[in-house]
């Protein structure tokens, strides 16, 4: 069976190599891909959409419909992780507490745990006492990471960036907080329900913008028809429309990253974890 698999892989690889012989040269200006549609986009993007970054315009306007579903794919991943992994907290067998006056660690079993006690501090089962440097460094970094993320989202029109990249950086900042401290602290600041709501809300911003265009005007996602709402001309409305959907993408990507992290790192219990 193993040899059969190897032979199949070699055969397919050989086929792939064989058929590349007919490819146009790398970066060939006369290849079909550079001649058929690309000239239109390069010449007309600024005229059509008032966005200097051609990639952003194609991503969020010409092929904005694809991007909406790519965002939905990310939401689907978050929902799938939730559906398959999430289990209720009551199945947790035991918890660890630190008795602060004496420094003794205690393991509690059953379902009665100290609530908001002055002397008992809840700790994770894999708790390590010395994390001052990590905590402090991460606290310093997280603000800058988040500001940079907002910059990446906002500057998608002019430079490499946009909703997906900015959203990932934003999500990473919260995950960094969870890693540097613990999962419970992160969930206290950015709860699971918030994550779930934001995940759906991001796609809703995107699809809702599209549906709004459809209701006011003619086509789904045709940002032209947003111009009366935004108070700009029709071309500029496209540019603003792209920005609105980029925000939607960023919200979804951020929230889904965090949501998936919560479920994966705690094996669905969200009781303790990294």
């Amino acid at each position: 069976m193993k040899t059969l698999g190897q032979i199949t892989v070699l055969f397919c690889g050989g086929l792939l190599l064989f058929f590349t012989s007919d490819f146009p040269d790398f970066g060939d200006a006369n290849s079909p891909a550079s001649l058929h549609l690309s000239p239109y986009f390069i010449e007309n993007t600024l005229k059509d959409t008032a966005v200097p970054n051609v990639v952003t315009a194609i991503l969020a306007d010409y092929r904005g419909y694809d991007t909406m579903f790519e965002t939905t794919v990310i939401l689907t991943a978050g929902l799938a992780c939730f559906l398959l992994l999430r289990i209720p907290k009551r199945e947790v067998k035991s918890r660890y507490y630190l008795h602060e006056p004496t420094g003794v660690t205690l393991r509690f079993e059953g379902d009665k745990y100290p609530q908001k006690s002055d002397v008992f501090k809840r700790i994770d089962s894999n708790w390590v006492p010395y994390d001052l440097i990590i905590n402090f460094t991460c606290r310093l970094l997280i603000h800058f990471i988040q500001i940079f993320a907002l910059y990446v989202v906002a500057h998608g029109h002019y430079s490499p960036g946009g909703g997906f990249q900015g959203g990932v950086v934003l999500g990473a900042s919260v995950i960094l907080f969870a890693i540097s401290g613990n999962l419970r602290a992160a969930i206290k600041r950015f709860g699971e329900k918030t994550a779930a709501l934001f995940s759906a809300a991001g796609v809703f911003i995107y699809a809702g913008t599209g549906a709004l265009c459809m209701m006011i005007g003619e086509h789904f996602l045709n940002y032209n028809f947003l111009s009366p709402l935004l108070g700009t001309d029709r071309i500029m409305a496209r540019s603003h429309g792209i920005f609105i959907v980029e925000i939607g993408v960023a919200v979804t990507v951020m929230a889904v990253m965090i949501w998936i992290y919560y479920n994966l790192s705690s094996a669905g219990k969200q009781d303790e974890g990294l």
Partner: protein
Amino acid sequence: MTFFTTIFTFLPDLPAIIIITPLLASLLAAASGLFNRKTPFLIAAAALFISFISSIILIMQVVETGIVIEYRMAGWAAPMGIVYIIDHLSALILLVITSAAFLNFISNRKNIETEFRNKEGAFNSLYLLFTSGLIGMTATGDAFNLYVLMEIASLSGYALIGLGSNRSPLATLNYLFLGTIGATFYLLGVGYLYIATGSLNIADIASIIPTMMNSSIILFAFIICMAGLLIKMAIFPLHGWLPNAYSDCSNVSAGLIAPLTTKVTIYIMIRICLTLFSPEYTFNYLKISEFMVWLAIITIFFGSLSALAQKDYKRMLCYIIIAEVGYMVGGFFLGNRIGISGAILHIVNDAAMTLALFMAAGIFLWKTGEDSRDSLKGMFGKMPFTMAGFTLAALSVVGVPPTCGFFSKWYLISGGIAAGQYMFVAALIFSSLVNAVLFFRILEIAHFEPFKEHNHDHVYHHSHNTLLHHHQDHHDEHYETTKHNGVVKEAPLEMLIPFIAVSIMLVILGLYSGTIVANIIDFVIPAAII
């Protein structure tokens, strides 16, 4: 008909509405599920109903005017932007998808509530996403957009079937590996097409391909696209993922995914062969028809023989699905008008039959709590209406007139004779005989054996690793039902009515199959094919 024409003028956005409604509703369902357990179901049912109505209006519009509807997403014309194309074929498949998804959904309200407790929001949301993925795959006129929607349908499909019996996570993992390989192959094919033509729009690529018939990039694009689709539709050597994935999952998901996934994949294969690559390229230039028909013949024999070996009702259905895939692929690659008509007609009929059989499986499981064939003892006395519907579905799979299964098989057999593929004809007849054996065995058990005491009612709830903490009340309720042996005790009406509706549809589809072929399918097949 003037009433409908007036609606059409007001609803030019219907091709978008049919897919956007489930998408928006899935977001609302996911969000509302965090606060309330009832609302997600209502939202989802309303959205599926709107989609269903839209697809009815669309198909009437297409049939009446005969004009292909083109819808420009974001307002950009074809090669630049993404367009949706509603022609006879896609309108027909859209109707199949939306009606199957809607009927299966409303009949399973109770199952969703018990099996996916506290996760209704996520489950209903994924159900809608899966449906909108299939709708988009069918309606799109853009090769890359098709891949994106395939991703949505696959990913939500993995999640939907991942939660079932204890074995379902492993089965889903296998499905995930193979499904991802299939989708990646398709994507690679689209990439090759883009390198060769510089376009992603299906109509645009189709207009370029005749100028470069001999290009090896196009050839490889065809090979790898088809390989990906064959994995996804589970034809014989690539079928390994299907039986476990579809039989271990929960009944709600099986009722949605089993009738639709393979059929939509076959639709895409037909779309790619006929619309993207021309029939000239597929049938005359490549000369793969013979090979594909043989593959289909092997699939039919394999599927039927394996179905014969199964003791479990749902696993048996899974192997029948594999055999039916052989019918459609073989019928299409016969390459003549009758064969292709039969294949397309069989997509519709087989979706209806599979839906009916899986809905019946859901009702049996609800009643007896087990999946084996022996659990159906005495069912005729207990559930006469369900069994009547089941008998219709069984007759249809066997291929007895006036049910729809007979008519598509008739077309396929005539096509096989016209093409001189007598082995394909033999395979079809053999498979029908095997189906007759399979289903009459079940009907016999259900008719003549006495009803068995099920003192382990709703065992299947225990075996599902879901959040069930209230099976006690169900248990009591069921204990009541099984105590009175011999008394008619049907399934609840909300399960029964959709099931009976689907069963009656099997006969209606059969009686009107001539109309469907004359008014819809004839327009699908290019005039070059005789």
